[in-house]
């Protein structure tokens, strides 16, 4: 095992976190930033910026990135498909649709949106698997799964657009969330989501060995005493809960769950707990980096993190595909 891969991502994450707290639309001296932590003065607006605008955004970026990274790894492992992620399976789109419906029909807000989002995530995955099964025998099953996910995602996106068009004025404030964004108040939604996510992360770590065995194939896993259905279903649920808890806070941010498992696989393969660790820390680092860019590229304007992540994540994924192709040619 490459031992350095345990502390190295943590160091990267710490450096990015420090940059996140240091850089922003307002120029704040390092001493003032440190003082905001050691001697917080609510009448000093620079302290307010550090604690209530930068630190809170950082916490949200860390959580959402970690949750999406681990969710993507779990999905790719149990489905043995490097193209699946919360985005490509339609989970993000399904959760978004049900959140919009929850707002429109029931007037829900805040943590109350988690349950409809979870329902949307579960329904979208079930529909994706169903459609994928209908395509059995036609073409590559791995591509069929992603194709089915894209179809279901497109259907849910259309439904979201339809609901939004019913009363555009009342949805004006959540357009940023629908694109996928980190807002200064998202930490309020994070508070109730974090314990759920933490439990899901513990469950992912606990099930890690069983999931590794599942990778060997259903029959082999059954021979080795693994309850295939239970592990598959449990892991799928954990992955959905992680993705949906992130979507509830920041909206449907793509690419983290798609890209991080590939990076982990290149560095350490996919067996054991180390890939899980890399996706946890790496996902957090990826989204933190994207948020730094979102806050700096056009400062004092703040770009949507989802847009930045989509652009940067797309480029990274393309690079990974090219890298993977060249490596397999050798």
């Amino acid at each position, binding site marked *: 095992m490459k031992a350095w891969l345990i502390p190295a991502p943590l160091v990267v994450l710490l450096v990015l976190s420090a940059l996140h707290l240091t850089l*922003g639309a*307002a120029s704040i001296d390092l001493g003032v930033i440190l003082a905001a932590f050691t001697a917080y003065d609510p*009448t000093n*607006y620079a302290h307010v910026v550090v604690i209530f605008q930068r630190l809170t955004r950082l916490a949200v970026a860390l959580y959402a990135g970690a949750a999406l990274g681990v969710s993507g790894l779990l999905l790719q492992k149990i489905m043995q498909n490097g193209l699946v992620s919360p985005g490509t399976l339609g989970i993000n789109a399904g959760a978004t649709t049900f959140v919009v419906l929850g707002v429109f029909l029931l007037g829900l807000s805040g943590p109350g949106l988690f349950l409809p989002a979870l329902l949307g995530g579960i329904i979208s995955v079930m529909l994706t698997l169903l459609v994928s099964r209908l395509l059995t025998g036609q073409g590559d099953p791995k591509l069929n799964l992603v194709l089915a996910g894209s179809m279901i995602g497109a259907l849910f996106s259309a439904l979201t657009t339809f609901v939004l068009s019913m009363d555009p004025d009342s949805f004006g*404030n959540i357009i940023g969330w629908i694109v996928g964004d980190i807002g200064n108040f998202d930490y309020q939604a994070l508070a109730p989501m974090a314990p759920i996510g933490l439990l899901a992360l513990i469950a992912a770590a606990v099930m890690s060995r069983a999931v590794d065995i599942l990778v060997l194939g259903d029959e082999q896993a059954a021979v080795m005493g693994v309850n295939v259905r239970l592990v598959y279903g449990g892991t799928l649920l954990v992955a959905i809960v992680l993705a949906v808890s992130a979507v509830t806070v920041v909206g449907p941010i793509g690419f983290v769950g798609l890209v991080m498992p590939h990076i982990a696989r290149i560095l350490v393969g996919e067996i054991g707990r180390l890939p899980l660790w890399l996706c946890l820390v790496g996902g957090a680092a990826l989204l933190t980096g994207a948020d730094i860019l979102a806050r700096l590229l056009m400062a004092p*304007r703040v770009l949507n993190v989802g847009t930045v992540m989509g652009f940067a994540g797309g480029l990274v994924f393309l690079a990974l595909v090219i890298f993977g192709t060249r490596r397999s040619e050798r």
Partner: protein
Amino acid sequence: MRLLALAAILAGLTLSARAQDTHTITDHAGFAVEIPVEPLRVVSLHDWTATVMTYELGGNLVGSTGRLNKTTGEYFIRSGRELYQLGFGHGVEMASVHGQLDMEMIAALEPDLIIGNTGDTLEFRDQLNLIAPTMMFDPQNGHAPLDNYRDLAGWVNRTEKFDELLAQYEARIAAAKPIIMAENAAPTYVAMTPNPEDGDIRIFSTYGAQTQVLEDLGFLHGAIADRVPDGEQEAYFSAEIIGELNTDYIFSSHIVDDGEDETTMLKQLEEVAPGASQTLPSVQNNKFISMQRFFVYPTTFAAMNYVLDELEALAK
């Protein structure tokens, strides 16, 4: 007698021919459009800009888009309701719900001129053009708001009325200046609204009648407004730069229908930027002023008179 009848018929024919006279005008989206010199059936597809402007000038408005009042279940014309008590019926019919164009409803009104809005209806221009000549109005094209209003006045053949109202407004500005500017000849201001949903602030380089009147009176906008990109009316800025709102005044706007008032806007500012109330000079000096949004967004003369009324009341 026969000669008189013939003269009457010829006069009628001449009038009819005149009513169908057309000229070609370039709209705000850059399209050269052939429209009637005197449009007799104008349909506006944006209530709180083109509709209220056409109505104020006495244009031949027969239809407008409207919005749903969720409390009453009735449709209303934003800013038309507030500034002119203008509603549907009595000659102005609903052309569509705002944001959901209904081509059949628009066609049923038999317009001879449609006025769309680049922000909402540009993508439907080709379809609209099949119904009637369609001009695109762009209140956020970076031009002076009153220049845009004058353009629209020309489209509906009411330039004379526009000039008459403009002269009255300029006279009122001259009279109000000594009252409103008694304390400070060139106070600074920022026009903004807090965005409590995402925790940022919305800075306006122009905001309809509100900023038009302020600029005409001699208020100077704060440097932060210059950081709004050219040609855009507004930009969302990080709340980190709240310290740059250190102007003499902050002007905001609120929506009464949503239960908002000036206190609400101050509370939202404090939510977005905790501690701002204690650091911003305008808030400390009671010069954080919020006006009713639907009264101050259109750059119509009624809206500008409302802003002047509010400022004069504050000065007293």
